[in-house]
């Protein structure tokens, strides 16, 4: 007990010292415009406790971003929040007319965020006041006949697993984002005026990555696109798998990461791809045993790190060859995009946990479990915290709202963690934003 107290005291002192140091802005999904998912500083190597948790009115699928001392994120309750990163106290709350299942981007004193009401909002970062709103042609989830094998096969079902909205990226004075209307948009940061739009053949809920004047984004139409950021002109498109029967193994839900001239992106066709950023030619691909790659990869020196859904694996691949450096089994569907800080990987799990792993080996360091996961209402989890599909998808309702809502009742962590000043921030479907140290 004495050791624990001493360790906690040391952790608090360390935290106090760390919070005094400035950190670079991490004001976009995955930390930067290229979406590398690598954060400055170090993450805790052991869990000391919950620094604070902040309650919203709906599931938090959005990932927090940091600018100065303020965290910005959205919630399924339709609000965008600004919260003091140190104290967890709300600075402001700004409403939209739909769920904000998108991660904000902060640039030039404005917060840009996409809402399920079909709008891109620009909010004053200091006050939350609406500056402008850009209307798309309307949001919608991916949908298909007989989706995932649901019956009857002629019925059109919307995909409840399509849970995220596109997270905007700000660069070159514009905001780039995708929409359920199938378009990729570029909108002027200051005015909200349309710069260009590019039509794809499917829902675009992935977040565009920006690197060197090019926007990279995948669509549910099975293509990864490279677009000129200034004009919207297509530079190349990269074709991935199709699934004409169940529409299960098709499309991009996750976002690309760009590093050293290569675009790394996971696909629901059960592959992780490495594509030449200049030409769009495949460098390598890794099959994932039929399992979706929804999570966006993190690109750390010598490793491309990502998780899979049904096969529940965390991979670290060699960026050059695509060969696994390691693959570690998990006990949960991994939708959350992993974050890397120092020598630690952090990843959210759909069973209501956040797991820290050692970057070098991939071995678990510590795990935090939300209250919903501990309560495990309806025995949705087995004793080892792995998913009990028989109770979760009890009526064959895999991929329907009912099944996904049951998963959400576990306090699932679909949000991507942010690490700053030794604190790990993430959202949960239990409606809270957590700060762990």
């Amino acid at each position, binding site marked *: 007990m004495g050791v624990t107290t001493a360790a906690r005291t040391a952790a608090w002192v360390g935290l106090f010292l760390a919070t005094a140091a400035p950190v670079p802005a991490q004001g976009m999904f995955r930390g930067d415009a290229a979406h590398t998912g690598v954060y400055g500083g170090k993450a805790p190597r052991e869990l000391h406790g919950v620094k*604070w948790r902040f*309650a919203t*009115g*709906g599931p938090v699928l959005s990932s927090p971003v940091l600018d100065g001392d303020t965290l910005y994120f959205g919630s399924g*309750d339709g609000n965008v929040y600004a919260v003091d990163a140190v104290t967890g106290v709300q600075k402001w709350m700004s409403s939209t007319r*739909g769920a904000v299942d998108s991660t904000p981007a902060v640039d030039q004193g404005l917060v840009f965020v996409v809402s399920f009401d079909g709008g891109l909002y620009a909010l004053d970062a200091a006050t939350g*006041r609406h500056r402008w709103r850009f209307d798309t042609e309307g949001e919608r989830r991916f949908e298909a006949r007989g989706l995932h094998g649901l019956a009857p096969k002629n019925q059109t079902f919307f995909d409840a697993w399509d849970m995220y909205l596109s997270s905007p990226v700000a660069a070159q004075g514009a905001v780039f984002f995708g929409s359920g209307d199938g378009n990729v948009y570029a909108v002027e940061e200051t005015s909200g005026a349309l710069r260009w739009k590019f039509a794809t053949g499917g829902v675009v809920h992935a977040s565009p990555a920006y690197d060197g004047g090019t926007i990279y984004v995948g669509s549910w139409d099975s293509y990864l696109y490279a677009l000129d950021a200034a004009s919207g002109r297509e530079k190349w498109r990269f074709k991935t798998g199709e699934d004409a029967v169940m529409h299960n193994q098709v499309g991009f839900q996750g976002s690309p990461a760009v590093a050293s001239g290569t675009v790394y992106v996971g696909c629901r066709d059960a592959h992780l791809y490495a594509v030449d950023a200049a030409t769009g030619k495949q460098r390598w691909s890794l099959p994932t045993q039929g399992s979706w790659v929804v999570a966006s990869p993190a690109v750390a020196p010598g490793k491309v790190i990502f998780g899979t859904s049904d096969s529940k694996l965390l991979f670290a691949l060699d960026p050059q060859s695509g060969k696994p450096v390691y693959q570690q089994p998990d006990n949960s569907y991994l939708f959350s995009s992993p974050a890397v800080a120092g020598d630690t990987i952090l990843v959210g799990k759909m069973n209501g946990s956040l797991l820290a792993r050692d970057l070098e080996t991939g071995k678990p360091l510590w795990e935090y479990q939300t209250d919903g996961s501990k309560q495990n*209402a309806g025995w949705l989890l087995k004793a080892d915290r792995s998913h009990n599909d028989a109770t979760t998808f009890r009526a064959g309702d895999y991929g329907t709202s009912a099944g996904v809502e049951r998963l959400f009742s576990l306090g699932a962590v679909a949000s991507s963690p942010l690490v700053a000043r030794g604190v790990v921030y993430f959202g949960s479907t*239990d409606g809270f934003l957590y700060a762990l140290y």
Partner: protein
Amino acid sequence: MQAKVCAAGMALCVLLVAGPARAQGTTVAPGRFDGVARIPGGPVVLVLDLDREAKSGWIGSITAPGYGVKGLPLAEVREEGGELRAKAALFGGATLRVRGSAGGLAGTLEAAGHTAPLELSRTGAPQVDLPPRNSALAAGFVGQWSTQFEIGAFKLHAELSLRNEEGGNSSGEMKVVEMGGSPMKLEAIVQEGEALRFKAVGGMPIVYEGRLSPKGDAIDGHVYVAALDAAARFARAAHPAGGN
């Protein structure tokens, strides 16, 4: 021996300090309280913020993360005999009755004719969500307005009343004639230049966004109800008495 005297003194000090603290166990103190209402089918997570306020004694708000509710204001907050009672538009209308407990608050949540135990732990200072302050209105917006709009197959008529209040803010009501009942109160009234935005609450929330016409005789905009929206042009129905 000296050590024993010291220990006895320490124990006395602890008792002196702990005594009043125990007595406060039945008193409600301001704070943020995080816990659950134990309704059948599983606990409902609730976050309650309570603070003292000079004018009315107590103010508060409640958040229910699983129910889309953030910062819902508490109404009729009263403290009597160590029990704090409040109402909230939660679960179709709820009454909270709480007393101070060792770690926070304990009591009941009553809704829909049912009563559930409520256990909340104090987690910090209160963060009461106050309703957003309505901005003052330019004279051209003040007064009575009316409109008709179509939401799906429903043709509706609405009457809008906007006024300025002392203290530099505004208030208003909107009544949808076909829905009957009391007028809906306006919240989050924001006027910037020619643009006006507000939310009407008290039934299914209605958001309106519009702009004052150059002649000042109409506000052109849209109503938003759930996922639906419709064009709505408010025409001036009457000029405000005495102006503003």
